Structure formats: structure tokens, C-alpha cells
């Protein structure tokens, strides 16, 4: 039976209110939160307006109930405040294995940009080094709220948090979780302010969405979270129900890195597909909370897309960006809250600052608070860099009742639908480009970190495109095209990627330049390319692929989350094949910074002897591995993906062993049937001890292998491990260089990959012979 997903709790903080009631009051009183810069320390204080939350860092720590000695980022604090409200509002019991799916674009940048030069030198502020990555705020939220279920983080630029709502709803619909807290958080930073300024799309006055004379956007900050539950159980427990999450979709514009296409293809597809999933007609929509950033490009193409879908019957619509500013990764969920408020209070919110319609489209938004009697369905849009476009439909719940049977037809979860790996491509510090050899010659180096063997990029990418691509994008392009070639797939039904740190080279370039030039003379390329979904967007652009395109950015859960989503999508029948990838790049600076907190070894080491090295930390590395997953077995099938699991900060070694045993059991296998266990040992003896423990206890009779001496330690190295496992199963051969103990005499049928990051993020992937 199909499942209906409803919203039972809301938490929100932005420049127009510290909670739901204040937010609503501001909306109906037409009170903007955009004004002079008072909190952000920037040389551009008098030049731009921002939608700031007028609390200092220390005030936010108090509001969030945090211990002042901890390393808080503003992004995390905003997230904690909003998530706590949502939990309280819904009254859920946090101990019930609740999933947290969060989103952020720049993560902990608000602290990193203050201390970056210090990280590289004295590292007085080193406690903030590990709060930089986008998953950090998610973990702080989970811990502060006492959550113990699945956690992951999405980063697809400005559509990020609509995508987290979508994933939460899908996880509930598929029965994988009962309750999910979904949303996103982004704090203002000099990085984003200056970044958008290089694109010359910031309005120096209050932004004017959908106005003929609009001059650009204002940036803002904020966080919001929704509690999503299955309708039946929410009703059974007598919960207040705000709305149903009835439709959602993500599509790619595949037109340009930052600009939308002339026909608004991506926005059109996202809206159309969301309506289709909700099983409603365009004329059923009563209000649209548009993306409406106030830039020349967005509002025109969004207008065109709206006209394409709604024809002459355009529903009441408005952009609320002139209230909050553009809150980037949080915008999707903040505006979802507005959409829900609209539904619950039966009103459309005004598009403030609007005067004249855009000549080319002539559409006029709602400019006053308008009552909508009988409001049933509202739509909200969020569009981001990399052509990443998402739409979500919220519906009033009484009506949802009689539509239930129709509505969920389009998501039919045929569980246990087999998922096959039918193509692979890998760029790594080893010779992995060619399919006719499998670790026949091994690269042995004595160095600070392991770097990829550079492919001849020109064989894969046209020079014109190459000029803007940093290392990570290049290796992503090469390995993804190898995987598609290998699978004989021209254009996949979905592109799903994972990256722990994203585009490091570009992020560092922009950050250094910003700090060194005191926010002056900055250029846009490195800023644009620094978004986490650059690789996914570049692949879509190259292939003119308009399909689902998501990027997960949660340290060593990044690739695993992308894998989980891929499996889900194939199970739902939403895709016949999925292009899945995991990639990270190492830079000299990133290596140096992480030696300060003992993550990486400070002195050169021989990669093949890394397990015997006595320095603290691991040997850093990099790489990109891509796969084509399919529902259908082909002649080129490598292996079957049987399952993936992630768990956060297990209590002790017993908890780890139980989790691994349970995982194997859930796949209807016994430990004896695991023919090879690939472990993530990386030469950091303190944490390698965990692998030795399971090797001695659970897997005392199983052959084991390791791989990080080949690729180094990086957040998505488990993608490399999966590439190895797929080849091992296909060729029924374990390269000698990987073997730790016991040589399997029988055929290799089941291979388990167990990886963990410093005993924080643990993950399991199981592949089997077909």
C-alpha cells in the first residue's frame, strides 16, 4: 500500500523571524528582513544590503543552548535552533531512529574564512578546521537534538534543501524510515557575498523580484526544518498535520553553469514532474512560491517556464526573496515553510517591491495579502547553479484523503529489485584507466600524499571546456565517461554523486584571493566552480541530460548516500539506469591544514608501507570512481549491489559488531558466506585498531583485504573500494597487493566493504556475484 507523507512539525529562523509565528507576522505585515549590514564583518558593509539574522555568534550559541567552548559554526547554530523548534512542534520522540537530511551550500565557511590563514600557520583556531565540511553542521544538529538515525547532507547550490525534503519523503514512502527531519541551513559569509558580487548579480538596494527594473538579488541567511511522518501513524498519534508532501521533482536545465536556459527547460520539467507525481493538473495549483531571486536571468526564465506550464491560467504567485534575501541552501525549505503557511492560513503572500511586469513575459505577481478560499495545493520552486532545479507540491490534508490511491501510483517501490553494476570508470593514483589490466603494475611512492595519475584529459574533454575545470571536475568527467562507455549507456536516467570536500582547488583559490586582496579584484570562475555539484552539473551539461541530478556531501557518508539514493531510484522504477560517482581531490593546503589536527601524516611516507608508519594520521589521497547501475543485467555486469548502510558514532566495538552482523543478516547471508572483507585501514593506528578488532572477532575466518595504500585516505575512497570489489567479483581474482589475510579458495561471491572515518562515520557496502 502506498504511503502518504505529511508535515507534523516546523522550525524556522531567518531575518524575518526567530520562529514560525514571527515569520508569519512578518509575511502578512509586509515586513522585510533585508537591511544594512550589522553582523557580517566585511569591507562591503556600506555597499550591500543583507537579510541578516541580528544575533552575534555568542548570542546564537546561547539561543541554541550550546556549550560556548565548542567549535560552533554560524551555519550549525542556525540549524540547531530551527531543528529543535521543529522537533518540539511535532512532539516526536527523538530516540526513534529518526533520519536527519540536511542541506547547506558553504557549510562552515563563516568560520573558515575568518581563520583560514591561521589554519595554514599557527593553527590557534584549529578546532574549526573540521567544522568546514558541509556535513559538519548536520552532525552538530543531530547531536544537539539527540538524533540517532540516518544522517546525511545534500548540496546542490540553491536548490539544496528542496532536495532534502524530497529525499526524506522518498525514504518514508519506501519504508526505509518512519520519521525524517528535513531541511537546510546556510549562514551569511564574505565568501558568498563576494562570490555573487563577482557575477554582478547583487542589487545594491532592496531586491525587486519579477519587476522589469530588477537589478539582482540580496543575500540572506537562515535555517528551517520540517518533521515528515507517515500520515497514518501521525494521525494515529493525534499529531497536528500541516500539509501533505504530495509532489516533488528535480530536473536539470543542462544549459549553463550559472544561468538558466531561454526556454526554462529545467524549471519547467521540475514543476511539471512535481505536479505529475502529485497527480494534479496545473489548474489545481492555488499558489506558487516562486524562486524569484530578482536577477535578470532567473525571473525571466522562471516566468517563461511558468507560462509554459500554466498557459493563460497562471495561479497567484509571488517571490518572497524580498523578505528574507536569498538564503541559498536554506531557501528551498524556508520557502516551503512559507508555502505551508500559505496553505494553512489560506493566503498568498505578497511579492514586495514589485512595480512593473517584465516586458517579455508580462506576468504580475500577488502584491498584497490575498485570501484564497478553498486553497488545496501550493507549489514552491528552487533553482540552483549547475542547472539544478527542484519543485515541491504541498497539499492540504483533508483533500489528500480521497486522492490517496491515485497519487502514489507513480512511486511504486518494488523492494529488492536487483541493482547491477554494468559499467565502471576510475581515475586513481594507480593505473586504473584501462579495463584490460587490474592492478598489474602498482605505483609505489614516498610522498606526503597520493595523487592521481593524470589521464590525457584532451581525449575526454574539449579544450574549450577544460579551461575552467579544476582537477576534481576533470577526473569526474573522465571517470564518468569511461563508466558510461563501459556500460554502453549514452545518457543516464539520473546522475547522483558524492563528494566529501567538493571542489577544494577552486574553494581555496577564491578564499585565498578574497583574503589576500581584502575582498577586492575577485573573479567569478573559481567561485562558480567551488559549488559541490559542479561535477554533476558539468556531466549533465556535457550530455544535455535533463534528468534527476543530486550531490551528497557528508564526509565518508557522501558516496554511500549517493549509492543509497541510486538504489532507491531504481527500486522506485524512476530510473532504469543511474550514473553514480564519488570523488575528492587533495591539495597541498588541505593536506597541510589537516596535518594540524592529526588527520594526515605530516611527513612523507611510502604508500605501500603506510600501515606500518608510526606517525599519527593517515596518508591523504584522491580519486574519482563512477558506476552505471541498472535494473537490468547486461553482458558487462560486474556484480549486484546488495546493500549499503551508514552509522554514526557507535557507542563501542560491540555496537559496531552488532551493526555489521545485522547488516549481513538482513541481506539473508551469514558471515561465513562473505568471501572477502575489504577494510579501510589507512595507517592511523589509533583508528585502524577498529578494523583489527573486527578482523579478529567477526571475520576471524574470512579472507580480508585493504586498499588505502593504493589510493590514500579521502572521504569518498569507498567508491574506489567498490570499484575494486566490482572488479574482484567480475574477474574472480583478488590482486595480491590488497590481501591482508586468508586467501579465498572458493569462488568470490560476496564482498563486504567496511570503512569508517576516525570512528565517526561508519559505512558498509555489500556486493554479490550475479
Amino acid at each position: 500500500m502506498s504511503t502518504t507523507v505529511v508535515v507534523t512539525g516546523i522550525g524556522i529562523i531567518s531575518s524575518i523571524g526567530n520562529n514560525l509565528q514571527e515569520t508569519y507576522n512578518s509575511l502578512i505585515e509586509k515586513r522585510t528582513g533585508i537591511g544594512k549590514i550589522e553582523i557580517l564583518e566585511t569591507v562591503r558593509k556600506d555597499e550591500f544590503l543583507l537579510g541578516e539574522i541580528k544575533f552575534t555568534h555568542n548570542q546564537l550559541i546561547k539561543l541554541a543552548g550550546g556549550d560556548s567552548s565548542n567549535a560552533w559554526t554560524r551555519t550549525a547554530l542556525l540549524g540547531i535552533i530551527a531543528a529543535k523548534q521543529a522537533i518540539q512542534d511535532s512532539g516526536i520522540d527523538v530516540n526513534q531512529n529518526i533520519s536527519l537530511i540536511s542541506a547547506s551550500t558553504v557549510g562552515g565557511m563563516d568560520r573558515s574564512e575568518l581563520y583560514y590563514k591561521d589554519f595554514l600557520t599557527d593553527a590557534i583556531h584549529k578546532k574549526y578546521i573540521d567544522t568546514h565540511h558541509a556535513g559538519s553542521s548536520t552532525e552538530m544538529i543531530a547531536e544537539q537534538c539527540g538524533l540517532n538515525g540516518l544522517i546525511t547532507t545534500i548540496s546542490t547550490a540553491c536548490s539544496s534543501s528542496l532536495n532534502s525534503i524530497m529525499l526524506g519523503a522518498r525514504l518514508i514512502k519506501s519504508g526505509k524510515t518512519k520519521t525524517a527531519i528535513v531541511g537546510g541551513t546556510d549562514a551569511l559569509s564574505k565568501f558568498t557575498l563576494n562570490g555573487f558580487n563577482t557575477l554582478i548579480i547583487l542589487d545594491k538596494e532592496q531586491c525587486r523580484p519579477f519587476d522589469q527594473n530588477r537589478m539582482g538579488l540580496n543575500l540572506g541567511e537562515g535555517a528551517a526544518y520540517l518533521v515528515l511522518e507517515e500520515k497514518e501513524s501521525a494521525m494515529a498519534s493525534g499529531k497536528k498535520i500541516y500539509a501533505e508532501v504530495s509532489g516533488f521533482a528535480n530536473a536539470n536545465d543542462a544549459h549553463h553553469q550559472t544561468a538558466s536556459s531561454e526556454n526554462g527547460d529545467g524549471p519547467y520539467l521540475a514543476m511539471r514532474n512535481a505536479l505529475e507525481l502529485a497527480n494534479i493538473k496545473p489548474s489545481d495549483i492555488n499558489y506558487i512560491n516562486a524562486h524569484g531571486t530578482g536577477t535578470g536571468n532567473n525571473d525571466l526564465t522562471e516566468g517563461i517556464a511558468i507560462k509554459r506550464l500554466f498557459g493563460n491560467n497562471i495561479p497567484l504567485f509571488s517571490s518572497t526573496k524580498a523578505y528574507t534575501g536569498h538564503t541559498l541552501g536554506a531557501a528551498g525549505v524556508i520557502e516551503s515553510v512559507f508555502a505551508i503557511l500559505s496553505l494553512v492560513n489560506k493566503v498568498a503572500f505578497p511579492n514586495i517591491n514589485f512595480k512593473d511586469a517584465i516586458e517579455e513575459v508580462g506576468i504580475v505577481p500577488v502584491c498584497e495579502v490575498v485570501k484564497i478560499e478553498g486553497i488545496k495545493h501550493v507549489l514552491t520552486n528552487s533553482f540552483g547553479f549547475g542547472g539544478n532545479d527542484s519543485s515541491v507540491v504541498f497539499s492540504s490534508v483533508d483533500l489528500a484523503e480521497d486522492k490517496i490511491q491515485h497519487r502514489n501510483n507513480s512511486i511504486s517501490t518494488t523492494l529488492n529489485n536487483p541493482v547491477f553494476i554494468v559499467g565502471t570508470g576510475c581515475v586513481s593514483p594507480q593505473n586504473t584507466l584501462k579495463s584490460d589490466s587490474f592492478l598489474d603494475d602498482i605505483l609505489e611512492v614516498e610522498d606526503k600524499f597520493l595523487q592521481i595519475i593524470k589521464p590525457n584529459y584532451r581525449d575526454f574533454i574539449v579544450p574549450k571546456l577544460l579551461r575552467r575545470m579544476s582537477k576534481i571536475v576533470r577526473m569526474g568527467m573522465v571517470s564518468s565517461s569511461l563508466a558510461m562507455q563501459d556500460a554502453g549507456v549514452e545518457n543516464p536516467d539520473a546522475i547522483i554523486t558524492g563528494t566529501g570536500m567538493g571542489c577544494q582547488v577552486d574553494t581555496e583559490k577564491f578564499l585565498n584571493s578574497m583574503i589576500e586582496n581584502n575582498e577586492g579584484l575577485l573573479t567569478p570562475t573559481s567561485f562558480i566552480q567551488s559549488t559541490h555539484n559542479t561535477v554533476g552539473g558539468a556531466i549533465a551539461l556535457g550530455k544535455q541530460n535533463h534528468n534527476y541530478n543530486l550531490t551528497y556531501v557528508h564526509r565518508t557518508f557522501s558516496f554511500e548516500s549517493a549509492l543509497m539514493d541510486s538504489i532507491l531510484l531504481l527500486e522506485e522504477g524512476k530510473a532504469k539506469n543511474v550514473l553514480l560517482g564519488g570523488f575528492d581531490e587533495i591539495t597541498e593546503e588541505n593536506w597541510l591544514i589537516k596535518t594540524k589536527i592529526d588527520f594526515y601524516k605530516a611527513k612523507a611516507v611510502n604508500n605501500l608501507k603506510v600501515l606500518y608508519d608510526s606517525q599519527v594520521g593517515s596518508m591523504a589521497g584522491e580519486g574519482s570512481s563512477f558506476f552505471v547501475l541498472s535494473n537490468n543485467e547486461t553482458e558487462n555486469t560486474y556484480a549486484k549491489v546488495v546493500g549499503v548502510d551508514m552509522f554514526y558514532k557507535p557507542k563501542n566495538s560491540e555496537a559496531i559488531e552488532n551493526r555489521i552482523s545485522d547488516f549481513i543478516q538482513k541481506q539473508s547471508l551469514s558471515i561465513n558466506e562473505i568471501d572477502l572483507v575489504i577494510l579501510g585501514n589507512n595507517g592511523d593506528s589509533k583508528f585502524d585498531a577498529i578494523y583489527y578488532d573486527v578482523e579478529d572477532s567477526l571475520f576471524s575466518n574470512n579472507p580480508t583485504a585493504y586498499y588505502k595504500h593504493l589510493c590514500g585516505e579521502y572521504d569518498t575512497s569507498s567508491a574506489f573500494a567498490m570499484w575494486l570489489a566490482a572488479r574482484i567479483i567480475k574477474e574472480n581474482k583478488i590482486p595480491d597487493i590488497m590481501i591482508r589475510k586468508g586467501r579465498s579458495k572458493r569462488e568470490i561471491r560476496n564482498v563486504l566493504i567496511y570503512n569508517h572515518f576516525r570512528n565517526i562515520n561508519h559505512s558498509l557496502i555489500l556486493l554479490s556475484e550475479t
Partner: protein
Amino acid sequence: MEELIEKLKVQIIEQLNLEDMEPEDIDAEESLFGEGLGLDSIDALELIVLLEKEYGIKIQNPKEGQKIFFSIKTIAEFIKENQK
């Protein structure tokens, strides 16, 4: 003027990371965008910063850029006119 044009070619190749190109590959009168060199809107933004950084000239309205950045020659002329 010739000297400025040659200098601009080198600077543009560097700023836009046109790895494959040599200064002699660019015709000073050829259009930089569209048909010619194939530059796009992001390159235009890079060129705005180049003018500010190397020649101290600030372009306030990006729409002005279209005319100025038509070719290397038009950029050189613009610099001549506007440099103090």
C-alpha cells in the same frame, strides 16, 4: 597600440586559462564571443576584473561590456580612451 594589443592577448590567455592558445592565434579584430573565440558571459566577467586589475578601469554596468569586449582591438581602444 600594437604593443597594447600584444600585451592584452597574453593577459587574456592567462586570465581565461586558454591553455591551447598562443598570442599569434588570436586575430585582434576577430570577435571574442560567439562565432570567433567562443568566449561566454563568465569570461566577460573575468575580463571586467582584468581591466580593473591591470589598467585601473572600472566597468560599472556589465551590459557595457558587450561593446567593449567585441575584439582585442576594441578593448585596446577602450583602454586608450579611458586610461588616465
